[in-house]
């Protein structure tokens, strides 16, 4: 019977093409608008590293004197000082064979230029980090790999470049061993990463959660040897004389992010114990005046929530777009009522010929489902147009304003489900119509 209902629905569309087009258009516009905002919201709120988001932890330390306030809910700064970052990085935590991996990271930048006249110099932001960064954040390599421990210790001028930068500088060829100039220093390429498909730059939310990831990665040890400036945010909580690079390294300024990979509850416990002891030690050395030690380790999704990556405005926008869809559906409901009730005499005949209420109801639900399906498919087109508009208007959202496969699949389902909701009442009304009324009057 389902095929028969589909056939009847198709005939119904052909019988009233204008009304059908109006209804499909209304659904398409409603779904298009809804899916545009929902897609952006979905990309914003999706788990950026589902395979290990519960194993990667952002580290926060409170190294302020008592009485100082931070603007976070729990009074903890999101970044840590250089000396804490390096101390934690160099600490040997965990049992043999199960050492805890951890990396500091911060953002700097260079003018990139080649020893050839055909490539114009350009500015490129750069991530200073440890060699484990790539493994921890599942950044795979197209060529080569991360720099060695020895290279990191000796602050060797080595660099890992991204797929897109390799494409730009070397046309995608294997560039391992080649040299690029970062400012006035020659860096040897040791690795080329694959395309890194993350929509939220969760490892560093201080420079814009939806900015592009860096195209250059260099050892964190170069921060001191090259006296590199930060291209990220630097926060302070007290007045300090910071005139030299060394002053900054020794200061209480907060400008590095720190992440640890903790594979088990035991490792979390071990790491927290270490942090507790570390802060006590620092307090006892007179570095800060705190009665109670405060720190936090937050996994990726908690970290995103904590930093309100998806703002209330985004949620309101999604809510409003669903309200718009409801308005569209209310209009469709009215049109369906008119269309279905006009067909009541035919339904009277069908009932007289043996159709039961369920069959009549199903016939109409299939029709509204088909309307929803057509509207949903057209809505995907409108949503793509909307997302294209967002990408053109706001470069910041360029990575987010896309529809992934789950949204593509969800669009027709939402459309069909919405239409079934809107069509239930007209379908119920027509199926409960007393057939005898219409048989004499047809």
């Amino acid at each position, binding site marked *: *019977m389902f095929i*028969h209902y589909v056939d009847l629905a198709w*005939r119904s569309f052909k*019988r009233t093409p204008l009304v059908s087009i109006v209804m499909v258009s209304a659904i398409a516009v409603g779904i298009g608008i809804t899916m545009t905002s929902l897609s952006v919201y979905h990309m914003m709120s999706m788990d950026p590293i589902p395979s290990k988001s519960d194993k990667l932890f952002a580290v926060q330390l409170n190294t302020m004197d008592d009485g100082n306030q931070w603007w976070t809910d729990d009074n903890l700064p999101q970044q840590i000082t250089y000396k804490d970052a390096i101390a934690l990085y160099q600490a040997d935590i965990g049992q043999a064979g199960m050492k805890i991996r951890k990396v500091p990271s911060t953002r700097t930048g260079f003018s990139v230029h080649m020893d050839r006249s055909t490539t114009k110099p350009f500015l490129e932001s750069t991530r200073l980090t440890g060699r484990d960064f790539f493994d921890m954040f599942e950044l795979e390599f197209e060529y080569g790999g991360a720099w060695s421990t020895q290279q990191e210790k000796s602050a060797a001028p080595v660099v890992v470049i991204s797929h897109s930068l390799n494409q730009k500088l070397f046309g995608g060829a294997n560039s391992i061993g080649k040299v690029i100039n970062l400012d006035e220093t020659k860096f040897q390429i040791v690795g080329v990463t694959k395309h890194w498909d993350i929509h939220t730059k969760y490892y560093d939310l201080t420079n814009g959660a939806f900015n592009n990831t860096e195209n250059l990665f260099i050892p964190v040890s170069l921060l001191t040897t090259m006296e590199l400036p930060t291209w990220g945010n630097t926060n302070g909580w007290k007045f300090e004389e910071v005139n030299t690079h060394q002053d900054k390294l020794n200061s209480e300024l907060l400008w590095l992010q720190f992440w640890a990979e903790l594979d088990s509850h035991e490792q979390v416990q071990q790491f927290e114990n270490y942090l507790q002891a570390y802060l006590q030690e620092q307090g006892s050395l007179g570095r800060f005046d705190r009665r109670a030690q405060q720190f936090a380790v937050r996994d990726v999704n908690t970290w995103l929530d904590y930093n309100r990556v998806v703002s209330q405005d985004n949620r309101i926008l999604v809510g409003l777009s669903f309200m718009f869809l409801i308005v569209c559906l209310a209009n469709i409901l009215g049109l369906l009522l008119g269309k279905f009730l006009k067909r009541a*005499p*035919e339904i*009277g*005949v*069908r*009932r*007289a*010929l*043996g*159709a*039961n*209420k*369920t*069959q009549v109801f199903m016939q109409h639900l299939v029709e509204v489902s088909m309307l929803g399906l057509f509207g949903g498919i057209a809505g995907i087109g409108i949503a793509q147009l909307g997302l294209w508009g967002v990408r053109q208007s706001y470069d910041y959202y360029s990575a987010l304003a896309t529809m992934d496969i789950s949204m593509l699949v969800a669009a027709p389902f939402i459309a069909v489900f919405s239409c079934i909701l809107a069509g239930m009442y007209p379908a119920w009304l027509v199926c409960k119509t*007393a*057939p*005898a009324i219409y*048989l*004499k*009057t*047809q």
Partner: protein
Amino acid sequence: MLSMKNVSKVYQTEKVQTHALRDFNLDVSEGEFIAVTGPSGSGKTTFLNIAGMLESFTGGTYCLDGIDIATLSDNARADLRNQKIGFIFQGFNLIPDLNLFENIEVPLRYRGIKSAERKRRIQDCLERVGLASRSKHLPQQLSGGQQQRVAIARALAGKPRFLLADEPTGNLDSLMARQVMELLEQINAEGSTIIMVTHDQELARRTPRNIQVVDGQLADFTLYQNNNMDAVANKSVSSITSAEAASDVSPSSASEA
């Protein structure tokens, strides 16, 4: 096979209670061909709708093949209607978007008959009503008589035990009306039970059994034989006129019934 005992039907509005049928008693045996006559508003169509389970009744008992209709759900009534009853309407009630083949197919689809069997039955029925060559035509491409023959074919396709015909010749000229009547007689001769509502006294005389509905009740038809139909009609008119004066039946609601 069809038995109605004290069946009543009351249409209730805020101010008026209209008795479309009162204490209606009727037994129909297998193979009968019954003409139901009576003045307009007397309750003939209401009776036919109740017999066809298109309307519920207010009181009494109605059994079809021993099944008490009052105990059935709406969907069960629809299934029973689909299996046992065929309808022929005055206005033909063919679905305009469907061609003849598809129109006849409608009740068979609801019965869940397989495609090959449906096709065979439809061809048989179309041949029987002489329209086999026009199976792809739309209803509006046929004359009134042809459309009614399609409606009869549709009613026959499900091989119903009952054919309920409401003024089947009402929209046809006398020649076509006779042809349709002959077809119904032929169907009856082959064993189908037919109940036909008609205003046409000539057609009614051709049926073996006539019943008169007057003011929602069966008239004492044993007094009136086929040869006295005109007298019956006159009496019915006078009886309903006097009944209307005394009863609470409003003219508008009577015409609805």
